[in-house]
């Protein structure tokens, strides 16, 4: 059985141990968190009454749920800042802190110390950057006045005049020129700014200052920020001094940047630790959301695989006072389903999950699905060369962690095997001698074989269905239903009788008649399955049966016959697609010949192969899936379970949601 058994673990531990316990559980990973508060409230989390459990029992009366979003946000902010310091280059490796005792206060204060130093250095660099900018602005401003050989102080000290330097857009400069005659200031055009504006030096008699300001404002005159009374020398001197200052600032900035770099690299290991510790604290906080707390204890619940009980013991044994109870899974607890398959079948779990995870009482359909899927695909898509291409692609994808790649690689192997059976390499049928047959030459054998294998698969599906239903004590469906034992025997009888009647198999005439009798009897039984169930359960025969039942049951029987026929014939498609596959090649080969062979022919055949691999490969995958989900799963599989969700994926989800 490929569904792994799980067991509910309930833990009561000392409050002081919660961090370490949560961390170890997280690193153990193979556990699905359960809301402890809910378990306690529903009365499932119980402790045997003895002296050892006294404290834990007492605490049950006054519980509060865990998790603190405020703290979590703080941790996450710090984590983010820490990452920012290293441009996101820190590594998430929770294993590295496996043996570290996590003390939240120390971690937070260590991180703060690191960040404070980092911030103060970056602030200083930023400040120098601002200084540099204002120096640049002043250099720009005074470079417009280079031709002035007098010290600026003389201009600024004029008692009756005010001096301003600013810029105007070209259009407004044009307007300024239009109104020169009515202006009472001296206005000199001293150059053009890098933004494409015209720069003017304006000298105004202070009595007319108000008028001039209004007029300049109307023209959107923008004062140059670097033009300041603080500079007193000639513009040339000022620029010289400023350039010197600029160099000083730049070298200071470079020095600080180098220091910061050293600080960063020398602290990288430490920062990486802090980063992992903070991430772990966030994780623990999320996990605490699932726990309950009393004054002295924490309460934890989770599902673990039965096989891992011992491993868990080694974790919990580290904590002397910890009470650990295991409780077997019962259907009413709706335990999660953990699939466990070998390397060959594992990728196909994805396909099963697409339909639904088996419930706890169901057989895992993965092995059967895997085998039949590989078989059907290979049957339809038998080609050595194309199989190899698919295999390579699949292996590459699988290496990148894509489960579909695993499926592709496996069905590709089947395709290669059938390629040898059909003697086909990249559609070429001359290179290899077919071990079995050439699809186009022996159509009937191909189609009949497909149906025979289909019947085989249906029989296995019936068996699976019967086991599942009997296992779940579904008497009506399991024994008398169309997919139960009755349905199964009916299907077999119809097959044998029909083949016998048509003389495909030697069957004495009497047995045919007997077969027909069995068929009628079983049909009647299925028609009245509710009554049969009542009889078995010693209830009144017509209990829960209304007039409607007879009508709907009649149509169900009718539908059962139809689907037996259609399900069986449906497998013809496996053979039919094998024909399509060969047929498509023939079409492309004809095209290649029409093109006169040679280079054009080769190009057409290359295109044909790509086209067939992509398009037909996809269609065949879908057709196989249809057979699995509709023809087969419909007979035996519910898939209404819920998947086992290990703690890491749960934490990742909640972390992202915050």
């Amino acid at each position, binding site marked *: 059985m490929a569904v792994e058994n799980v067991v509910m673990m309930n833990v009561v531990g000392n409050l002081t141990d919660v961090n370490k316990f949560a961390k170890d559980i997280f690193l153990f990973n193979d556990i699905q968190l359960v809301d402890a508060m809910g378990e306690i409230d529903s009365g499932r989390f119980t402790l045997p009454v003895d002296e050892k459990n006294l404290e834990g029992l007492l605490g049950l009366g006054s519980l509060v749920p865990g998790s603190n979003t405020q703290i979590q946000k703080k941790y996450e902010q710090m984590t983010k800042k820490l990452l920012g310091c290293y441009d996101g280059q820190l590594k998430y490796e929770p294993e590295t802190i496996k043996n570290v005792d996590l003390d939240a206060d120390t971690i937070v204060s260590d991180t703060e110390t690191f960040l404070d130093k980092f911030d103060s250095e970056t602030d200083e660099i930023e400040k120098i950057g601002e200084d540099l900018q204002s120096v640049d602005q002043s250099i720009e401003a005074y470079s417009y006045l280079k031709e002035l050989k007098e010290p600026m102080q003389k201009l600024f000290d004029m008692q009756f005049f005010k001096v301003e330097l600013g810029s105007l*857009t070209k*259009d*407004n400069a*044009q*307007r300024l020129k*239009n*109104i020169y005659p*009515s*202006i009472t200031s001296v206005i000199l055009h001293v150059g053009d700014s890098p933004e494409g504006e015209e720069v003017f030096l304006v000298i105004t008699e202070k009595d007319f200052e108000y008028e001039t300001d*209004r*007029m300049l*404002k*109307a*023209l*959107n*005159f*923008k004062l140059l920020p670097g033009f300041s009374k603080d500079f007193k020398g000639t513009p040339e001197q000022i620029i010289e001094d400023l350039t010197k200052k600029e160099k000083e600032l730049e070298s200071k900035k470079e020095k600080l940047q180098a220091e910061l770099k050293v600080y960063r690299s020398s602290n990288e290991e430490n920062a990486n630790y802090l980063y992992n510790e903070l991430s772990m604290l966030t994780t623990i906080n999320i996990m605490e959301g699932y726990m309950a707390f009393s004054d002295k204890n924490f309460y934890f619940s989770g599902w673990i695989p039965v096989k891992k009980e011992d491993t868990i013991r080694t974790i919990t044994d580290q904590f002397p006072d910890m009470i650990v109870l295991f409780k077997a899974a019962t259907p009413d607890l709706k335990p999660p389903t953990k699939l466990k398959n070998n390397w060959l079948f594992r990728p196909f779990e994805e396909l099963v999950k697409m339909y639904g995870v088996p419930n706890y009482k169901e057989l895992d359909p993965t092995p059967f699905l895997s085998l039949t899927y590989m078989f059907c695909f290979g049957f339809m898509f038998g080609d050595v060369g194309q199989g190899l291409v698919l295999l390579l692609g699949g292996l590459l994808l699988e290496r990148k962690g894509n489960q579909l790649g695993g499926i592709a690689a496996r069905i590709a192997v089947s395709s290669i095997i059938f390629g040898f059976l059909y003697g086909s390499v990249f559609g070429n049928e001359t290179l290899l001698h077919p071990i079995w047959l050439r699809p186009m030459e022996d159509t009937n054998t191909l189609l009949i074989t497909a149906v025979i294998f289909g019947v085989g698969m249906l029989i296995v599906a019936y068996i699976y269905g019967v086991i599942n239903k009997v296992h779940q004590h579904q008497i009506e469906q399991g024994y008398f239903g169309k997919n139960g034992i009755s349905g199964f025997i009916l299907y077999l009888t119809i097959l044998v009788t029909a083949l016998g009647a048509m003389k495909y198999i030697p069957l004495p005439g009497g047995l045919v008649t007997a077969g027909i009798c069995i068929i009628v009897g079983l049909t009647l039984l299925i028609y009245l399955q509710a009554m049969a169930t009542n009889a078995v359960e010693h209830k009144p025969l017509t209990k829960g049966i209304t007039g409607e039942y007879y009508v709907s049951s009649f149509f169900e029987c009718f539908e059962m016959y139809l689907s037996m026929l259609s399900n069986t014939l449906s497998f013809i498609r496996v053979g039919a697609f094998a024909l399509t596959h060969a047929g498509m090649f023939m079409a492309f080969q004809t095209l290649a010949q029409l093109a006169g062979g040679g280079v054009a022919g080769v190009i057409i055949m290359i295109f044909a192969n790509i086209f067939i691999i992509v398009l037909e490969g996809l269609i065949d995958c879908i057709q196989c899936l249809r057979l699995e989900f509709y023809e087969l799963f419909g007979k035996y599989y519910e898939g209404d379970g819920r998947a086992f969700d290990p703690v890491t994926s749960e934490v990742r989800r909640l972390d992202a949601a915050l």
Partner: protein
Amino acid sequence: MAQNAALDTKVLALKAKTLTKNDYDKLIEADSLADAVRYLKDNTVYSKYLKDIDPEKAHRDQIEAALSKLTIDDTEKLLHYLKSSDKKLMSLITMQADIESLDILIRGLATGKDLKSLKDSLVYSKTYTKVNWNRLIEAEDWEQFKNDLKGTPYYRRLEVFDTIGPKEDLLQIEKSLERYYYDFLKKVLSDFSGKSEKKLVQALRESIDLENLIWIYRAKKFYHLKPATILSYSLLGGRYVTQEDLNRLAMITDEDELLEELKKFSQYSFLFEHEPEDRDLHMERRAERYQYYQFRKLLKEHGVTRALAYLRLLNYEMKDIISIIEGKRYELSPDEMAAYTIYNTKPEE
């Protein structure tokens, strides 16, 4: 030409949806303001934009904003069909929308309103606007407002104003943005050297003339501004009115002399040849009607000329609807109302 064919057809298709003479008659005959709005809502291309407006409680600003959205939508539609040099000309429409919305917010800020309450009055092209409006309406003071505009061309026009509030500054700010729009127009027009759009360029340069003449007339008569200020806000790049003309006009101090000088521009004398009250009241409407007929003619041209003409006409249509709605509020007779509309809505005798 093939490219124009698609654009030309699209413009005609859009034009076909605008108001007809019959629609104007119905609007003017409507018993009340609410009826007029209801008519627009039930029978015209504007219904989509008015669907959330209750005719009984309709407010002028609200209706104006709703109607303007059609212009923006149509501009965006037509922009798809244009080559990039023509797009620039059409971007004037989206720039105008930006500036009008900025004016609304600046006025709101000056009168101490919460800018968020003005959100519904803002009309702009979501695709072509240069402003982050959602951030802008969060601004709480003038400094923050200006800062939010950094990176847009509007910032340069506003940064020299340190404060907002006094009426005078507000006029300066609005004029400053308007002047930027016309400077941009002048630049776009000077880039249009081809012959095909010659008529469009001429019409738009005449719009500059009209703005200038009306500005000088009003600045002298109502604001009593100094020549330098008048010239600071006068526009460059007109068709018939030269810079020398403007300089000369700005220097005239006597009102009668100014009027005589203005009348000498024979193309535009229709603005000034009326009794004073009539002249002042209808000056803008007369200028618009003059241009209305120009753009009606341009609608028969092709390409961007036709597209821009259509959008201008749409703008006049919107103004007329607002005039009629205002007329309803003041219960004007159809004859009186006709005096305020650009489109000739005068009832036939």
